[in-house]
């Protein structure tokens, strides 16, 4: 289901108190560098609070997940999304990479994003599809607000701009990934505009094969995490890792699904979200976070990208649209047209989500 302009304004509302800092032209990385320099001399929790409040978030377009994370994926921290195959990790990564390019008045950061693909699942067709939906959304919001400033911003936001602002690297093995992480700060400095997001999809796959020496693996992984954390604070950008799941056999012989890369990796990420199937519904579970309570929300993957499961989707018949790519027209029975008009249920036409 497409996000309505009303949703978007509520998204901006969510960011409400920070919007002043959002719109003011900011030197990239300024706020967090303050933290960095302050660290040596120490700073009070009060000072840190004001700095943290000014930090940006990257929205996911699912208000549920955004709310759970306090407004989206936080800048300056490492967020990890784990989940079984086909749950939508790559979809979420692509969505985030596109959302980072959203103009500031529309609740985004108006920046660039770096997408590091280790699995080869970055299908450009799909990126174009989600990007087109996002561009369409921005234009419709601008049109409905009729604010000339917004319209001007929206006019400059085209598919070419979105695609041009996503920097893509394909890493075939862990060496390439580490090498890339070592030089990424130069690349980011070379990009004229600010970079808001680095996505690594997935962190697990280069480290799960061809490693006999677990000690070496752990050292390389934590080194990598440190490099990315440094980038996150230096340039005040969000780092998102996706991680796979693996089966762990417990002492009683039962097997359980756990995030891959072992227990020690679990300590590296600041925020960890586990994605899983609950029946036919996709759910996101905030498993670890320093600032938000553990919680579970539902989301769905639609043709347009990651979206909320709306009340409509739960309300019986209306959810029947949950079947296919094609549009299904819900028709009221002609004889009952008047009643339905009284009930305020006009015949509706909707885009269908993918999941059935």
């Amino acid at each position: 289901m497409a996000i309505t302009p009303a949703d978007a304004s509520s998204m901006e509302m969510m960011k409400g108190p920070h919007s002043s800092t959002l719109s003011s032209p900011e030197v990239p990385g300024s706020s967090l560098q303050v933290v960095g320099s302050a660290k040596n001399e120490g700073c009070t929790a009060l000072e840190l609070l004001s700095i943290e409040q000014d930090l940006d978030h990257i929205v996911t377009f699912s208000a549920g997940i955004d709310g759970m994370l306090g407004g989206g994926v936080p800048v300056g921290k490492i967020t990890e999304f784990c989940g079984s195959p086909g749950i939508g990790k790559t979809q979420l990564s692509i969505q985030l990479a596109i959302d980072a390019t959203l103009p500031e008045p529309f609740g985004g950061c108006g920046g660039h994003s770096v997408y590091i693909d280790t699995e080869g699942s970055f299908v450009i067709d799909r990126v174009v599809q989600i990007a087109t939906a996002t561009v369409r959304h921005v234009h419709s919001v601008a049109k409905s607000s009729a604010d000339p400033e917004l319209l001007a911003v929206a006019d400059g936001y085209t598919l070419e701009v979105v695609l041009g602002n996503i920097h893509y690297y394909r890493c075939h093995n862990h060496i390439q990934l580490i090498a890339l992480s070592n030089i990424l700060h130069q690349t980011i400095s070379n990009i004229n505009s600010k970079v808001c997001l680095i996505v690594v999809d997935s962190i697990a796959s280069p480290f799960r094969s061809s490693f006999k020496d677990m000690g070496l693996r752990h050292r390389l992984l934590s080194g990598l995490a440190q490099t990315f954390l440094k980038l996150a604070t230096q340039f005040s950008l969000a780092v998102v890792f996706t991680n796979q799941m693996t089966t762990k056999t417990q002492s009683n012989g039962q097997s359980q699904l756990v995030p891959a890369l072992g227990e020690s990796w679990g300590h590296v990420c600041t925020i960890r979200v586990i994605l899983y199937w609950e029946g036919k519904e996709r759910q996101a579970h905030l498993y670890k976070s320093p600032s938000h309570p553990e919680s579970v929300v539902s989301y769905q993957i639609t043709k347009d990208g990651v979206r909320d499961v709306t009340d409509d989707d739960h309300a019986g018949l209306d959810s029947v649209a949950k079947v296919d790519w094609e549009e299904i027209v819900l028709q009221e029975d002609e004889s009952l047209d008047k009643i339905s008009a009284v009930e305020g249920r006009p015949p509706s036409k909707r885009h269908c989500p993918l999941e059935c």
Partner: protein
Amino acid sequence: MMNALLLEEILEKEDIIKLHKIHIFTGEDFIRSSPLCVMGCLKCTHTQYDNILSVFSHWLAPNHQTALSLYSIYNGTGLLTHLSKIDTALLGGLPAGTITEISGPSGSGKTQFCLMLAVISSLPTRRGGLGKGVSFIDTNCSFSAKRLISIAENWLQSRSISRTLSDSIKQLADKIKIYTELTCTGLEKRINALTSAAATGETADGDIIIIDSLAGLVRKEYDIRTVKGVSDRYQFLSQMSSKLKAYAEEKRIPVIVTSQVSTQFSSSAARGQPSILTSLGISWTHCVDTRLFIEFYKDSNKRKLSIAKSPTGGLISVIVRIEKKGLILDYHETNLHKLTLLSLFLSPDQLDHQISGDSNSYSMTVKDQTDRYTHRVALRE
């Protein structure tokens, strides 16, 4: 070798000898080793170390691209399955540059699907194929040349070309190479040979690789009752998959493998577990990009084909029939199936529903207790 040369280019000879002592021979080794170890060995400062590291990193890091540049060179050479809804959901067939897994119980038509895909791959582009060569790796001797020819005949005939039939069939069959491999070692060697021939540029236009079946072979050889067996098996599979993936990406072609389902499939889906698991375990499922699942549906010649994982996000299922041409989409059953799925979403107060359909229109009528919200849901093609 290249990286070893680079080592000589930027380092003094005596430094290289020192590095050799701590087992650093290439740029890869340098990146992998611990900074403290290298600094201690070379007696250099951290800044010097950083400079050397940066040179190696530049050398080894992948190229920078933007999504826009990817899009501009993109030419959509996915392998169409000619099952229209599946092709739409996958945004143009099995995506090039990725691995597609076809799984299902025995007798569900995996080999038939593979044979059909082999035929489509080698069909000329003007007939909806890719016009490419196919390397068909058969591991359980299920390949039937007779069936392949019959599928090919039906594909060519159906486009009403009768006179050149035998010639075009010959041409087509000539493009499909069959390799029978009955051991994992053999399979590994074969894949190495195919991919390295591609790397050295011997075959400019890479063959589409179809492996039928990967699971059968792997399950036979690795004993998963032991921890070592499991990890060895995963090691083997992930190496195969990364080689195949690199090959597929370089040649911009799809790679297709089949696997079986095991009893895990029926075990109750635990929290966080997908409802369908293949015999090769969840770690393997992370290695493939697209996963198609075939299962039996109603009567003997109908099958339900579902997309269980896809980078395009479209997870749908359709009903297909196995016919002379291979797998054919059954529109009628697919639409009825879709409405049956819809009825699962009805809330308890929407008591009654009826599904009806003929070849043109499909509808479901739903009534609730008060008879007020009587909806007709119609599918629009």
